[in-house]
């Protein structure tokens, strides 16, 4: 017994070493383009973790994570734009000239400071999420209503950012590739390599953080909210507070993710706040396995990678595949791939194929939950 425990510990350690080695080695092995893609998909894994926290664990399906994602991206891009604007004639980013703006809009000012920016990247989306969440949860709006409202909020933000040329460069968005950071161009290979490592590091930190949350008592309350909110309320908990906090955390994670994604893709634009993108985030988690943190990471990286491969080969077919994934994952694989592997999935499949024998257990009786027994 003790032996296996020790063995497992060694195994975990070994796994970590392999992962770390892979991360460090990746920039030297992969071609620039694929490395860049991998870096971006890893940054998407962070927003997926947030989605998993609110949807997989708390049961809140947000279709508006794009807001927070884009906000984080905008924060980073505003700092980078200002950082390299000092050499320009007016001392303000170039695009303002297109619309005849002479003075920097007031809300740009604080983004001159790198410290403020680093904090704003996760705090601003977090605060916005907390306010939005509080307004919604306070009224006990939940389920699909919550989803629809977050989607409406997404559209509000999209239209606002899209229409405000003079404040934030409208549809064009803000570019970061040719801006300077620490005296180097953000788009340069060496900077991109650093961003890749930073992203990988933050993914691990975000994963550890999320794991700490869900293993803590806080996490049990979240699962309680998901499974039976009224009962939780009657036990004396205030679900509103917990929901608001977890929604804010997910917003903050989305902000970090957006900032990392922006510096690696070279642009942040209102396109990050389109309806399909935010729903896509849900499907990453759903495919990977909701309620499993690793599943969210794997799902985000894997699906995006598949998307880029498929759209290179057969551009028009990605939409069919994606649509099919949505249907498949909710009808056939509700636990996602990882959940399926962890449960009796493989064994069931094998037994259906006649390779392994089915094990007889008691049928699951979930009378309390949403699933009712089938009589």
């Amino acid at each position, binding site marked *: 017994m003790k032996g296996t425990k020790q063995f497992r510990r060694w195994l975990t350690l070994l796994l970590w070493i392999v992962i770390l080695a892979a991360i460090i080695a990746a920039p030297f092995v992969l071609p620039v383009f694929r490395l860049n893609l991998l870096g971006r998909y890893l940054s998407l894994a962070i927003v997926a973790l947030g989605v998993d926290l609110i*949807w997989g664990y708390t*049961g809140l*399906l947000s279709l508006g994570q794009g807001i927070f994602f884009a906000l984080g991206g905008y924060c980073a891009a505003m700092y980078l734009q200002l950082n390299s604007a000092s050499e320009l004639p007016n001392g303000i980013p170039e695009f303002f000239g297109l619309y005849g703006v002479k003075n920097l809009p007031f809300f740009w000012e604080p983004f001159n400071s790198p410290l403020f920016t680093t904090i704003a990247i996760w705090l601003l989306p977090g605060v916005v999420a907390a306010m939005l969440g509080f*307004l919604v949860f*306070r*009224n*006990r*709006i939940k*389920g*699909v*209503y919550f*989803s*629809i*409202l977050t*989607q*409406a*909020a997404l*559209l*509000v933000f999209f*239209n*606002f950012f*899209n*229409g405000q040329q003079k404040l934030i460069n409208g549809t064009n968005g803000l570019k970061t590739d040719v801006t300077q950071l620490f005296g180097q161009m953000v788009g340069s290979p060496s900077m991109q390599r650093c961003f890749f490592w930073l992203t990988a590091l933050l993914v691990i930190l975000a994963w550890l953080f999320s794991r700490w949350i869900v293993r803590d008592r806080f996490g049990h309350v979240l699962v309680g909210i998901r499974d039976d*909110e*009224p009962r939780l309320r009657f036990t004396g908990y205030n679900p509103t507070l917990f929901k608001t906090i977890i929604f804010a955390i997910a917003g903050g994670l989305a902000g970090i993710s957006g900032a990392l994604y922006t510096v690696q893709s070279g642009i942040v634009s209102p396109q990050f706040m389109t*309806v*399909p993108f935010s*729903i896509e985030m*849900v*499907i990453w988690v*759903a495919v990977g396995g909701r309620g499993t943190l690793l599943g969210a990471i794997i799902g985000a990286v894997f699906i995006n990678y598949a998307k880029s491969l498929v759209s290179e080969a057969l551009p*028009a077919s990605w*939409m*069919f595949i*994606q*649509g*099919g*994934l*949505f*249907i498949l*994952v*909710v*009808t056939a694989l*509700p636990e996602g791939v990882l959940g399926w592997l962890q449960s009796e999935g493989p064994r069931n499949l094998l037994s259906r194929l006649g390779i392994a024998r089915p094990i007889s257990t008691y049928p699951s009786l979930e009378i309390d939950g*949403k*699933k*009712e027994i089938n009589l």
Partner: protein
Amino acid sequence: MELILECLFNGVAIGSVLLVAALGLAIVFGLMGVINLAHGELMMLGAYSTYVTQLIFKLPALKPFYNAYVIVALVVAFIVSAVVGILLERSVIRRLYGSPLETLLATWGVSLILQQFVRSVPLAYGAGLVLSLLVGFISPFLLPQKLLEGSRGRLVRAASWAFSALVGVLGAGGLGSLVSRLGRASARNVDVTAPSWMRGGIDLWGVTFPIPRLVIIVITFIAVLGITWFLNRSVWGMRIRAVTQNRSMSDCLGISTERVDVLTFGIGSGLAGVAGVAVSLLGSVGPNVGASYIVGCFMVVVLGGVGNLLGTVLASFSIGIMTDLIGAGRLLSIWPDMPTPLASAVDFFATTSMARVLVFALIVVFLQFRPAGLFPQKGRMVEA
């Protein structure tokens, strides 16, 4: 006076488009608790059906009746969307009752597939496929029941599907040649031309009332009346209401809940088709036609409250009037000497983009006071 009349008319006109589009959604959501994100794509199918109907009416034999094609299109669109909707219900949604979030994701998947289907597959093939589905779906009802039973039944069913596939292929071929003969249309965005009597506007009291808008208002009015009558006065309507109130009790009393589900979803989808006809009269018919309305529809449903048609009606009209009031900057013309800070704020929102921002924001604020919409369901809170 003119100003108020025009504003009212515009609001009602915008609202009635929203209403006819949201009606099916509200029914399906209210009665079944299902959020159907593919509703917009069912509208799109309705719009394409209108286009195909219009093409067919350009045939020499039908030319004299061309002016009436819109009425035929309403029926065709209803049937097409209803059948596709029923297929959707039978194949996907049925498995997901009781888990609305999963339904939402699955229907989003369906909507992606339908959209890309319309983009990638030439119109004639698509129409042929829909035709064969229609025939295949309806033919078992037309055959005598005896044929469908026993071991022969399978064969008969297979034969009927083969027959419908053949009809579909023939239809596709026919339509393909029709398209190349009559229209400039490919599977790109196509154009539905209103018959001549539906063009132009009526000038009354200094205000122009565009006729297509009036037609849409009439269509909406009839749809709302029809559905209200159906739900409250007909036998099946009563069964639907019964199942909504207490599914297991209705089941015990001998109501086939499965049939009720199919019927409800079919009607909701059919109404989406009708909405498709309406929007095709106003704008273009293309793969994105549904997507541009869907979020507005959801706002209507959320604002109106679940399971109450009156709420849906009021919500659409108030959203319509607000959109026009804010977007066209009418407040400034109604109250010309408003104080400057207020005036500049009004001016800031007086673009179509910003009006949308403000209307959605107002809805969210409104929900702070009435979380369950204008007309919440009475009784104990139901945990969905």
